[in-house]
């Protein structure tokens, strides 16, 4: 087990008029190698939660364990933790500061006091992982396009060789193609490097295709946690908390109600298509007979 939250609560502005409980008694187990979608709307506590996973925030009560050790205990190496649990913030391109792409990606590994050769190797490797071509390595990061900047920023975290990669809305502000490119790349990294990926998003449709577990947050607590298909069976409750299952889920339910018997657990267009085509072939066969 990699990350474990035990009864974690977090209170903002404790003791003031603005006191707000951002996390309510959260217990969560994140084993190695999963691809997780963390979903919730703004203010649901998901950003607070992920900052607890790499020690940027300390719980007001409760414990966060990394590989069995309490990460907020005295003497725990926070720097090492942050290299193991890589956190990519929203609009990560806003953190770029170096004169060249390569130098910027080296910032993380350099902070880990690695030998220069290792730093460079890691930077090259990370840039390759996110699909930045070599002719851009010496360009200023500020000359790149929006999508490229974002990928460089993600490489900046990957270069620390994390075991867990957390991305806070990595597709915000990108166009559909940019979104697909980034998500495909992340999926590839997850598969090839066998690292745990936590994808924070507010779109079920975007993550349904990729993840094998969805955690839905609402008002600082965990509303649902499970495989996408299982979570989407709660599509009515999801709607109540301001989220929605992918539209195909609704379509399948609608069809069922109209006495077109299709399985309602389809979460992607591809699955829905197969399901409906099966029904269609069935109907035609029956008619031919």
């Amino acid at each position: 087990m990699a990350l474990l939250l035990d009864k974690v609560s977090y209170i903002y502005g404790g003791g003031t008029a603005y006191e707000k409980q951002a996390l309510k008694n959260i217990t969560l187990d994140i084993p190695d190698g999963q691809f997780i979608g963390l979903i919730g709307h703004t203010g649901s506590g998901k950003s607070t939660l992920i900052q607890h996973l790499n020690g940027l925030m300390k719980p007001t009560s409760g414990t966060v364990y990394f590989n069995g050790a309490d990460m907020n205990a005295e003497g725990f190496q926070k720097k090492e933790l942050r290299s193991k649990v890589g956190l990519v913030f929203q609009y990560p391109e806003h953190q770029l500061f170096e004169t060249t792409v390569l130098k910027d990606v080296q910032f993380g590994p350099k902070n880990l006091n690695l030998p220069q050769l290792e730093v460079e190797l890691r930077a090259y490797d990370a840039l390759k992982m996110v699909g930045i071509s070599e002719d851009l390595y010496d360009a200023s990061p500020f000359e790149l396009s929006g999508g490229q900047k974002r990928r460089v920023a993600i490489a900046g975290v990957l270069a620390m060789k994390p075991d867990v990669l957390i991305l806070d809305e990595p597709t915000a502000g990108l166009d559909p193609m940019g979104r697909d490119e980034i998500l495909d790349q992340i999926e590839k990294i997850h598969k090839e490097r066998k690292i745990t990926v936590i994808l924070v998003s507010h779109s079920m449709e975007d993550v349904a295709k990729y993840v094998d577990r969805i955690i839905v947050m609402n008002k600082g607590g965990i509303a649902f946690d499970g495989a996408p298909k299982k979570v989407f069976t709660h599509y009515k409750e999801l709607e109540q908390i301001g989220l929605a299952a992918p539209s195909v889920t609704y379509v399948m339910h609608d069809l069922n109600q109209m006495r077109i018997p299709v399985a309602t657990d389809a979460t992607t267009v591809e699955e829905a298509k197969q399901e409906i085509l099966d029904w269609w072939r069935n109907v035609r066969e029956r008619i031919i007979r």
Partner: protein
Amino acid sequence: MIRDITIGQYYPSGSIIHRLDPRIKLIGTIVYIVSMFLFDTFWGYLVTGLFLFGIIKASKVPLKYIVKGLKSVIILLLFTVSFNLFLTPGEHELVRIGFIKITAEGLRFAVYMGLRLVLLILGSSLMTFTTTPNELTDGIERLLGFLKVIHVPVHEVAMMMSIALRFIPILLEETDKIMKAQQARGADFETGNLIRRAKAMVPILVPLFISAFRRAGDLAMAMEARCYRGGKGRTKMKPLKYKGKDMMAFCVLAVYILAILGVDRYFPMI
């Protein structure tokens, strides 16, 4: 941590102080600041303190909230106080450790200096707590309007100030975010010597400046799109007019000044 900075923030409570004309608040603040240098006795501090306390009560801004604003200047405060404490020469020596000595004069001076600074900061932050930047702009613009005659761009300067105030919380939040993002990449802002720490600021400052410039560009475009073309031909949504309560405020201010001058003249020094 960085969100704790409250100076320059508006705190809406709809109190009588909030509804005063910004000009009287500006004049009041200036008078208040000047008054701090008109006396040198305990009684003076008492009157000033009570006056400020009364205004804070009337403003309905929680005292805790205002005092929180002191946090960000605590270093300056400590520096000034200790500077005065240790370096004021005097005859009544109280403590001596090596070459450092504390004199009675120094102690008195340090306490008064600290008090003065605290009262000064609290007083001027109260103005921004109770006055929206736009009102402030209007107030400054009207008060300094006479400078237009000698071609000082009063409106533009006032507008710049008000926009700066509006963006302070946004940029603070941004700083917080960038710091966290760089920390997530292993950056360390807390250890090392001064040069190292100064160098550690680069990864924060560069993105912050870039973001500030981008925002400035965006904002300029948005303002132009809303037909902003300087102060010429502009009308006001909330034009400034002195009302009854403003006149009363002027009277209160006058009484305060008289009290300060009187106390300084007729009460013995402590």
